């Protein structure tokens, strides 16, 4: 995320990692914090948080399950994917790698990606930062020999170096019995597992039932665009999570936390289940632009409580026109995200004779009752409008001519909103056709209730 100041993460008073701006000022990993602050006085320093790292790792693992169900964590910083079963679906190793790279970037992380016939070898290549994708066991040993010993994360690495071993190849060249005697069976087993000579079982992750992810903003933000930029990373993670479960969701909950005061809740409701990050982002953009924030936002959390099955969408064989035609929920969601849920609705008839109750709001697209009514106007006034009366004739921009009626509607005694009216179709002086009624009461006042149009 772009930030105006240089940033770095420190652990035990030493710089662990720094961004490009900090590096440009001469900061290096391993440098004492005091020296770093002398070089870059405006440095934004954060203490390393192991819990946040684990959470990020779990988030990436859950996201990666869209590529394969077998995902294992290799603490503290690696995720292992068993992809041999997915090669045919994705058409090879390179497309999977491309997808992983793109997704990880969309979530706002950077990663070294490597593939090898054994889990340990892949893990070592990734640790060494070698972006090799090896899908042939015959090539594995040759590539493995070039790796430095640091990939082992072996406590006695310096002792190994002192006996003249600098790479995995050097270790493999040593006699096995002697190696085992000096450094223990563990080192030998690790080498054998990397080469595929020993089994290397891993415990695969199980996806959580709910989705929850949070992101802390580098600087407090109020702009919708800045919030959206951060939220998009969470949405990308959500898309992977939903894809892994072959599911979609209708409801997203976003918590925007502030420095003080309660978090702002943004709830996105969808008409149809969906899992596309791009669509969520579109809806969220409209909502964020409409939302007034009480304070700048410090962090964003995304939560999804309920998911529902949603099949992977197939590519259309013919033009995608047909597919789009069934896409009306998208339109409704877009309109609602900007105008509010109440502003976009459908219509339904209700089994009630009282004209104001015969028509009601409904969910668009929902099947409606088919009822038989008499001639009714296209427009109904929200509230009947009282009409003047001159010489027993109701007037609305001049006297009205009653053309048809009366249709007596007398109903509703059971819910104390009863009406007793005589409805007429009337023609106004300007030729408009109106639906008017007279109260069946001694006063007999006239009202305008509809326009035929």
């Amino acid at each position, binding site marked *: 995320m772009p930030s105006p100041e240089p940033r770095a993460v420190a652990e035990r008073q030493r710089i662990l990692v720094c961004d490009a701006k900090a590096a440009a000022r001469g900061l290096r990993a391993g440098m004492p914090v005091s020296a770093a602050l002398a070089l870059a006085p405006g440095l934004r320093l954060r203490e390393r948080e192991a819990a946040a790292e684990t959470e990020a790792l779990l988030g990436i693992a859950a996201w990666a399950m869209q590529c394969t169900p077998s995902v294992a964590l290799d603490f503290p910083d690696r995720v292992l994917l068993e992809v041999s079963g997915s090669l045919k679906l994705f058409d090879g190793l390179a497309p999977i790698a491309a997808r992983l790279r793109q997704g990880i970037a969309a979530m706002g992380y950077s990663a070294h990606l490597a593939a090898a016939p054994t889990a340990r070898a892949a893990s070592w290549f990734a640790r060494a930062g070698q972006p090799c994708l090896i899908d042939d066991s015959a090539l594995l040993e040759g590539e493995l020999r070039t790796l430095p010993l640091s990939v082992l994360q072996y406590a006695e690495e310096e002792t190994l170096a002192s006996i003249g071993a600098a790479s995995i190849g050097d270790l493999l060249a040593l006699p096995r019995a002697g190696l085992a005697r000096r450094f223990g069976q563990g080192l030998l087993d690790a080498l054998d597992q990397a080469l595929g000579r020993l089994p290397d079982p891993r415990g695969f992750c199980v996806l959580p039932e709910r989705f929850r992810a949070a992101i802390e903003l580098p600087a407090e933000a109020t702009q919708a665009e800045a919030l959206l930029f951060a939220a998009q990373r969470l949405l990308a993670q959500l898309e992977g999570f939903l894809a892994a479960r072959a599911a979609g969701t209708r409801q997203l909950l976003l918590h925007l936390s502030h420095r003080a005061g309660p978090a702002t809740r943004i709830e996105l409701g969808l008409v149809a289940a969906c899992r596309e990050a791009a669509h969520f982002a579109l809806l969220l953009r409209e909502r964020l632009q409409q939302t007034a924030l009480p304070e700048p936002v410090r962090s964003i959390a995304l939560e999804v409580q309920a998911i529902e099955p949603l099949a992977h969408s197939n590519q259309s064989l013919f033009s995608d026109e047909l597919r789009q035609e069934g896409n009306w929920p998208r339109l409704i969601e877009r309109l609602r995200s900007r105008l509010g849920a109440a502003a976009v*609705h459908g219509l339904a008839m209700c089994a009630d004779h009282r004209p104001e109750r015969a028509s009601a709001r409904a969910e668009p697209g929902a099947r409606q009752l088919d009822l038989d009514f008499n001639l009714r106007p296209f427009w109904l006034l929200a509230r009947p409008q009282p009409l003047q009366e001159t010489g027993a004739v109701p007037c609305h921009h001049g006297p009205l001519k009653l053309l048809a009626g009366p249709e007596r509607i007398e109903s509703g005694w059971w819910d104390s909103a009863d009406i007793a009216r005589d409805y007429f179709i009337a023609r106004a002086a300007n030729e408009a056709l109106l639906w008017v009624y007279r109260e069946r009461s001694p006063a007999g006042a006239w009202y305008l209730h509809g326009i035929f149009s």
Partner: protein
Amino acid sequence: MPGLAVAFDQHPGIWRGSELTRGCPGIASGFAALDAELPGGGWPCGVLTEILPQHEGIGELRILGPALAQLAAQGKFIAWIAPPYLPYAPALAVAGIALERVLIVKTAKDGDSLWAAEQALRTAACGGVLAWPRRIGYTQLRRLQLAAEGSRCLALLFRPSEAAREPTPAALRIALATSAGGLALSILKRRGAPLSRPIFLPALSAPPLAAGSHPSPRDYAHVVDSPAPAAAAAGSLSARLALA
């Protein structure tokens, strides 16, 4: 050059000044006299149409009823954007418009109405977009016309009759006025030869009514205390006559 003349006759983009354009076929309006004068033989799709009624309530929706019913029957949504009153479900049902395909969008600002109209035009889900903007400028009209051109929508804009004085990028502009109990449609603008005389649609604003202004008690369509309207079909005769 007979070959060239034939080619001219067949090319959809070329028409003689005295004829109407032969663009994509429109949606039959249900009124033969009107269809004969509309390019494409009906309400045009994929262009913006302006309807300028003299007053509201003179029949501006009834002339659209059959076309909207056809679109809804094809499973397409009809979006009503910022209507001046609430569309009344029983009337839409009587006009044959499937209620599950009705989408009503209420807006607080004109900007929102135009945005909603554009969104509706840009999805294939909508077959008809009806909008009632309070105020709209030429640039915004142009934008809607462009959105309509990219769609297969029946795009209808309802504007006051005074708007006839302003230029418009819309492809079709029809003014509605009452005339001797009927409805006179003046096509102010269309693609093709201009039409000087108005089209007269009788029966529209005059439903045949039984009793006039002094009804006798036997003509009462009487509904008393029965909970469901479906049981009471009395009086629906006038409905059928009026819409026939």
